[in-house]
């Protein structure tokens, strides 16, 4: 009686041993790959981050240190931050940039996805011409379009009062970059799904909104990130259209630190450091949509 229990237990112990040692072996193989990955990524990360670190360090330097060739500040100070934050309108400019970026990104997320969807899933005459025409807008630098835009805006009064917000935003409410992106990503949505929904009697917009769009969430998230950043950095157009200082965006405001014969680099870097915060925030929020699910499989590389 006891020997069978003994052998049972030993059998079970053996099984457990085998499982443990095999998983240990798997982990051992994994760790060399991962080690290599981390090494390469770390070296790359150093190259990637250094200028950013320098920018922040510079914002902590008092003006006399700007002309020295040093990486670290010798007498770190917060006076630049104090000065920049108390510069008239800095808070307002920050707010303007955020507002405009949000408006634009919301609009782009909707319209670009819709157009990308249409260009990918529908057959209609003129499709390729329209796509190419939209893509073609990327091939002309916007500096050349500023004068017609400004003349149009003045006619409609978009450079006065609160309409200035619309004036600043309107050239960017729909973008070809996003349309192109979404068009590409809708390749990964099988047409059968859409047809099935049609058969079920769903109307077209519902198919787009409920069936197709959720399947390209990573692309929409990426689009949101880049559109937010692009709008955030907009400089020339907001400068030209805004007729009063309160409506400037942050890059325009920061450019006041550049003068004819010299630039206040430490103040500029301070403003730039402060400007990075919402961008990193937006990235961290939206990138979860993109990355979810990859790390678990680890099979794709």
């Amino acid at each position, binding site marked *: 009686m006891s020997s069978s229990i003994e052998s049972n237990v030993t059998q079970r112990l053996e099984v457990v041993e085998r499982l443990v040692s095999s998983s240990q072996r798997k982990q051992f193989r994994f760790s060399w790959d991962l080690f290599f990955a981390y090494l390469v990524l770390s070296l790359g990360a150093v190259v990637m981050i250094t200028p950013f670190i320098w920018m922040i360090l510079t914002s902590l330097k008092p*003006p*006399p240190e*700007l*002309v*020295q*060739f040093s990486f670290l500040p010798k007498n770190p100070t917060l006076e630049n931050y104090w000065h920049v*934050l*108390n510069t*008239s*309108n*800095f*808070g*307002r400019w*920050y*707010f303007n940039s*955020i*507002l405009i970026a*949000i408006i634009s990104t919301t609009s782009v997320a909707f319209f670009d996805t819709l157009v990308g969807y249409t260009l990918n899933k529908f057959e209609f005459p003129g499709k390729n011409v329209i796509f190419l025409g939209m893509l073609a807008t990327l091939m002309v630098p916007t500096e050349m379009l*500023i*004068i017609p835009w*400004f*003349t149009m*805006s*003045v006619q409609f009064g978009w*450079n006065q009062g609160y309409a200035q917000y619309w004036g600043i935003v309107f050239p960017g409410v729909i973008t070809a970059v996003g349309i192109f992106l979404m068009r590409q990503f809708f390749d990964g949505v099988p047409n059968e799904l859409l047809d099935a929904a049609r058969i079920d009697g769903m109307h077209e917009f519902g198919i787009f909104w409920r069936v197709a769009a959720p399947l390209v969430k990573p692309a929409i998230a990426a689009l949101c990130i880049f559109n937010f950043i692009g709008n955030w950095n907009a400089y*020339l157009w907001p*400068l*030209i259209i805004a*007729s*009063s*200082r*309160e409506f*400037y965006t942050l890059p*325009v405001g920061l*450019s*006041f630190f*550049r*003068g*004819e*014969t*010299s*630039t*206040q680099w430490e103040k500029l870097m301070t403003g730039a450091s402060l400007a990075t915060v*919402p961008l990193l*925030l937006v990235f961290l*929020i*939206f990138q*979860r*949509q993109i990355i979810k699910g990859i790390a678990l499989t680890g099979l794709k590389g």
Partner: protein
Amino acid sequence: MQAHFRHFILSLVLLISLLAASCAPVGTLTQTSTEASGEEVVTIEYWQYNFGVRVTAMNELIAQFEAENPNIKVIHNSDIPYDDYRNKIAASVPAGVGPDIATLFYGWQPAWVDAGYIVPLPEDEFPHEQVLAEFSPMVKASFFEGKLFSLPTAVRTLALFYNKDLMASAGLDPEKPPRTLDELKEQAVQCTVKEGDQFKVYGFIVNPPGQAHHWFREVLLRQFGQQPYSDDYRKVLWNASEGGYQAWETFLSFERELGTGVAGVYQNDQDGFLAGEVCFHLDGSFRLGNIATNAPDLNFGVVELPEHNGIKSTFGSYWTHGITTKAAADPARYAAAIKFLKFITTPAAGKLWVGITGELPAQLEAASDPELLADEKLGAFAAGLPYAHSTFFVDESKDRQAIIDAYDAVVLNNADPRQELDIAVETVQALLDNFWSSRQ
């Protein structure tokens, strides 16, 4: 759930920025307002690019002007960064908005006049002989084809900065900076310190993208007996005589033969001097403000540019005020603009301006103020006003680029200096030809 979280974060960000916006002081468009006392109030708009002390000075002048002229209101728009000042003005024109009086860099005047954007100043209000007599000779550049198009309140000149500590450690007398070109050469060589191939101290850097190209055109060329352009500004004369080539060789010699410096080492022209690594440095009066902020402990002095062959010369530049076609279209605004322009170019205005901005006054009367001449730092600049020249630039950036390219070709690619000067002359001559032919 994800969507909710995202919305929450976004609203948090929005909330924080709203709070930040409400905490920070909200700036107002610098407007001056007067109570109209029943008379018709004429409103004119004045634009300049944003530069702290100039904005303050102009606000003062406007306040005084409006007190004396209660029926004129001046809107002061200085909310434009320097980098895109011209673009903002250019965009405003076809849209029908913009300034009645604008401050422009004198070098832009030919382009603005060519485009018909600024109008000639009426001779009865601004008599030419009076202007020529009262203002520094460099203001001649505001005349074009016999008409006067603008007037400045303040001007700048070039002078030689020197680092007293570096001079002392090189065995030179810090109270005896170089007064002639030969002295500059000697002292710069003596001041240069090298460890093998590396410079520890630069004696004198010729940096064409900075102020040095002006030094070549208006100072060196004249000192070697060659005027840079013909009197009617139709011909480039840099290589019209041996003197021209000699000036060019001298220009190049500091880097090539004497080895006192290398162009392009510092990102900004003045960084080396501010860092205390350069002994002698060419720069304008505007650099003084920089030094006060970025190098307050620098032990330096300023002296007039070195003379040569008994000839003293310096380069002067200035920001000048012109009246635009927008003002000229309306007689009331035109009259108001003229009054304003007259007011801001009086010697009194010049004196006020100098006090606030530290620039030099455009009027000789204010410039010959003994206090100003005795000033330790501004004195050397003020002393240059009677012999300062400004260049008539058809296209300043291309003219400058021609010299930069010629210099780089010699210094980086070992090209023949005489050939390079010839090429530069050809390039700039083409610019002039293009400009004048389109005016025919």
